[in-house]
């Protein structure tokens, strides 16, 4: 006896249209079908009704799924997971699910799970490049967990400019390869609460950049994290960049004693002369040192009177000296006195001297010209924010000025231009807060894009404190867990599909997980960051990218004078 239906199947039950696997014991969802698309929109994302067999508890926001459409693969990120019922009435009288029979019937039918996924990219079936999504799959297309092949098709393989930074969620054997060229081409932000792995992540990024020679780095190392061995929270030591790339990295220090005590090999001790500090350098410190506008004006006037030695004079000035000043300048004595009190705080900083021992700016430039990255250790001054801001600004202003000249002199001849420079600063909101971002050199660098071959790597735990306009120029954002809504909103600003990412961002693990989004990745991705350990050190030594430089044109690699 045969059974057949002369009519079209008259069913409103999706399960009848889409026969399901009959393996209700499958728990691993890897590469398997999760459900079908049942609705949604391009702007708001897709709704996916989960198959009965899909174990909701095994899913997590941030994971990739692939919708296999008719001629395209759609890459989507899970941004929400909901429990649905076909009828809200069932909530008021829920069935007794301790009964196995009832559970098997209700789950997936009257009560079922829905995924909300945000489409990020599409790839045409016949060997297409990843493209931005401009459409969505049609109804009832199957949705699967992304496989290793899917991920590789999007993020490419590791090579001279693609650097492995970690694995996507739940796909440990896969790797996410950042496009380093694009990474350094625009400014980069590394964000996250304290203790979420920002410093480790930054060190991994810097290692990739240095290893593959995509940019020279100047790192203002507040907590001695990057140059020489840094102790982690568990007390084990992580190697610094100088230890990993001894010939490509130089350590400069502001605190020779501290650096020596850590047995770090340093190349240069930085001193800054009072006579080199200009009133402009103080403007940056307005909020940190509580300087008023009249005080800054007074600084300009004092410089006119006392010339280069104005700071030494002011610090040493007796009240009689200040009295005499009254005749010579317009600034009020109160402002001058207040300024004097503030600047006397500088006396705590041993690296500040009446005259610098040598020209540290020139020294740094020399290393940069040789394509050597410079890590500036702050030693004990890392805890003094005004020291950090003063020095970072002082050096950066002068180095940037030289870059501007060099680039303009090159007249567009790329071979004559100085090497791409990436400047790393921590506590970035102190440099880039909306009050001062316009006046400071870091605001300028962020805004002028890559015009002068200088970009920023900003590390910060409070991204909401960064000026909006600057933030919009941060091309690649690497974000570990943030729990403050304003911070989350700040890092997601200007990222497409960001509504869904908010949920993902707020639910990252507390350490070694981050979302990477923006310029250096084809689509936002949640990674479990590579572990910074001996295996990582080894991979830097033997990776194929190690000699990636040979593919570069020759002049690019030669050292070139910036001055």
């Amino acid at each position, binding site marked *: 006896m045969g059974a057949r*239906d002369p009519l079209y199947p008259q069913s409103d039950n999706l*399960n009848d249209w889409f026969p399901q696997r009959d393996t209700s014991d499958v728990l691993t969802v890897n590469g398997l079908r999760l459900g079908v698309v049942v609705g949604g929109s391009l702007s708001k994302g897709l709704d996916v009704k989960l198959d009965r067999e899909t174990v909701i508890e095994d899913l997590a926001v941030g994971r990739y799924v692939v919708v296999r459409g008719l001629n395209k693969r759609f890459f989507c990120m899970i941004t929400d997971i909901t429990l649905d019922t076909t009828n809200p009435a069932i909530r008021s*009288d829920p069935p007794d699910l301790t009964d196995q*029979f009832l559970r098997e*019937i209700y789950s997936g039918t009257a009560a079922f799970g829905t995924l909300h996924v945000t489409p990020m990219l599409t790839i045409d079936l016949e060997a297409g490049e990843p493209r931005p999504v401009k459409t969505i799959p049609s109804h009832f297309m199957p949705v699967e967990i992304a496989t290793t092949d899917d991920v590789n098709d999007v993020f490419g393989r590791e090579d001279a400019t693609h650097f492995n930074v970690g694995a996507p969620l739940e796909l440990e054997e896969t790797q996410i390869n950042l496009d380093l060229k694009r990474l350094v081409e625009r400014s980069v932000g590394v964000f996250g609460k304290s203790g979420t792995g920002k410093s480790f992540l930054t060190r991994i990024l810097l290692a990739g950049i240095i290893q593959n020679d995509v940019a020279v780095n100047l790192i203002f190392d507040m907590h001695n994290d990057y140059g020489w061995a840094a102790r982690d929270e568990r007390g084990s030591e992580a190697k610094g960049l100088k230890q990993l790339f001894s010939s490509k990295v130089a350590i400069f220090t502001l605190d020779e004693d501290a650096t020596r005590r850590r047995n770090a090999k340093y190349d240069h001790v930085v001193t800054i002369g009072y006579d080199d500090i200009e009133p402009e350098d103080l403007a940056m410190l307005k909020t940190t040192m509580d300087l008023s506008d009249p005080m800054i004006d007074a600084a300009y006037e004092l410089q006119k009177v006392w010339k280069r030695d104005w700071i030494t004079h002011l610090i040493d000035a007796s009240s009689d000296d200040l009295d005499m000043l009254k005749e010579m300048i317009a600034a009020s004595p109160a402002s001058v006195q207040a300024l004097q009190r503030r600047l006397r705080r500088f006396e705590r900083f041993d690296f500040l001297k009446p005259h610098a021992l040598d020209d540290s700016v020139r020294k740094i430039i020399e290393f940069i010209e040789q394509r050597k990255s410079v890590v500036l250790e702050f030693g004990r001054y890392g805890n003094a924010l005004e020291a950090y801001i003063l020095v970072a600004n002082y050096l950066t202003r002068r180095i940037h000025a030289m870059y501007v000249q060099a680039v303009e002199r090159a007249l567009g001849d790329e071979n004559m231009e100085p090497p791409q420079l990436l400047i790393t600063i921590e506590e970035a909101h102190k440099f880039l807060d909306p009050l001062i971002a316009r006046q400071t050199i870091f605001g300028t660098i962020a805004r002028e894009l890559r015009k002068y071959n200088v970009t920023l790597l900003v590390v910060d735990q409070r991204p909401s404190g960064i000026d909006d306009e600057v933030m919009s120029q941060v091309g690649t954002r690497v974000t570990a867990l943030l729990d403050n809504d304003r911070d989350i909103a700040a890092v997601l600003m200007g990222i497409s599909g960001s509504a869904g990412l908010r949920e993902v961002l707020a639910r990252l693990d507390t350490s070694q997980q981050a979302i990477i989004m923006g310029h250096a990745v084809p689509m936002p991705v949640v990674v479990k960051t590579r572990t910074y350990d001996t295996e990582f050190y080894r991979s830097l030594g033997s990776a194929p990218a190690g000699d990636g430089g040979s593919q570069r044109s020759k002049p690019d690699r030669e050292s070139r004078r910036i001055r």
Partner: protein
Amino acid sequence: MTDTTAQQPIIGSVLRASTVGFVCGTRSQDIVHPSFGAFVRTRHGQMGEIDVIGLIHAISIDDDPLVRQLVLANNMTPAAARDQRENRMVPVEISVVNIGFIQYDYIYHNLPPRPPLSLDPVQLCDDETIMAFTERLDFLRLVLNTNDVPTEELLAAALLHASNARPEAQRYAFLVHAGRRLAGLLAHDPPRLQHLLRLINPN
């Protein structure tokens, strides 16, 4: 649809019929076989004719003048009662809702295009036919939309019949499968669904 079916007992013949159901008349002593929710079919001798498959949803015994008299008389002997039952003038009526039909040995899961003919013999379906028919569960919807029958009780009884027609090992899976279909069909009416599931829950 051959030998074993032929051996199934005839439970009566069609009295009245329409495309949505029919009534089968039988003598009262023959009603030991049919039960509420059982699958029945009509049996037409001719090739190409339609045999209707349905579910028994009511069995009724009407009175007649003689029964009324006997009930009033206070000296009814057991012999008189048996005689009345065996030789009564009004047949027992078995009401059936149509849920499908068979034509040229094919099973169709929708209403028959024509009703069965009166006096067509009616028999219980054998296990093989029940299994084949309930491979698909379209009749659930058909019955749920039927008026004037106790839908949930009827479906529950039918599903238990269908389950029992299967080998022991397949019964549970069958009921779960049916339950899921019902969950889809009764999504708008959770209390009704819960009631039905309670009726077929094997646990």
